[in-house]
């Protein structure tokens, strides 16, 4: 974070982000993916139009970066059971076909994009590994539901 960005303003922008945008998302994984989507793939810089208008581009960038890291650590620290629940809630909120969703996530591993830059490598590994396991659990549940019918 730039030393020129005032911490109080960043704090204010962060709280604004929590209230206006993040509180509407029903699960931790959803919040994490939303925050990761505000990051430019080429530069790694974060951008959010509404937040930048209310504060400034730099303040918004810092607030988004902090929120992204916090959301990431929260998801990475979830137990496997907690993550399975969260992933199921995200799947439900996406309104996609569950079978297709799980297949695509297992093949493309889009959740890797949710990892912030310069995060501890072991935490990044645990996160990706746990999502892989949570997907396998949901797939197993889905298969057993199909076979019960």
């Amino acid at each position, binding site marked *: 974070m730039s030393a020129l960005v005032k911490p109080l303003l960043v704090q204010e922008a962060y709280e604004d982000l929590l209230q206006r945008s993040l509180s509407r998302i029903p699960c931790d994984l959803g919040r994490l993916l939303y925050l990761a989507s505000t990051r430019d793939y080429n530069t790694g810089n974060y951008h959010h139009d509404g937040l930048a208008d209310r504060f400034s581009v730099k303040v918004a960038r810092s607030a988004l970066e902090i929120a992204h890291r916090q959301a990431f*650590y929260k998801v*990475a*620290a979830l*137990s*496997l*059971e907690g993550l399975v629940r969260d992933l199921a809630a995200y799947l439900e909120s996406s309104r996609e076909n569950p079978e297709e969703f799980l297949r695509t996530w297992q093949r493309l591993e889009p959740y890797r994009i949710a990892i912030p830059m*310069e*995060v*501890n*490598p*072991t*935490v*990044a*590994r*645990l996160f990706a*590994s*746990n999502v*892989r*396991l949570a997907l*396998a*659990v949901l797939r*197993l549940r889905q298969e057993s539901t199909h076979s019960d019918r």
Partner: protein
Amino acid sequence: MGVWGALAGAIVLLLVLLAWVRADAPSKDSRSAWGASLQEPGESVEICPPEIVSQIFSADDLKFVAGFESPSLERLFRRERTAVGLHWVQETSAIISRIMRRHLEASRLSVDLEISTEARIFLQYARLKLNCGVLFVLIGLLGPQRLAGTALHGDRLTQRIGEVLREFQTAAQLREPDGAGSL
């Protein structure tokens, strides 16, 4: 019995030494985007938080997976968690080496070295490295779930030695205002 015991001891020692060497060598994956920050010289590395270490070595996730009674899911879980556990050991071992390297660099420039303090620090370092080597072998053999106590103890010691050496270096810098002892 004596010959077999010696042979078994030699094999265990060899495994520990191999694990030690492997734990020090940067793995293929740690040079990728995951581990880039760890391998950059001079760059600060965020230490794995203790709650994440507990999570890696926790038996609760295994219990949850076992509830599905699916051998393939359990195999996947064991494989995944073992890989994460081994990665943590490698990372911790690399951090310990780096802390020690920085300490040695600072010690070389220090004018009032205390041999007994240096010996204590070196013994602590050797103990931590051995702990990493043993953990590496045991995680590979047993999986991380049975080793939570050892891992958390090693993690606490690593964090403690890091703090002590930081304090030691700060004190050395204060004693040498020209900055000769700085890292």
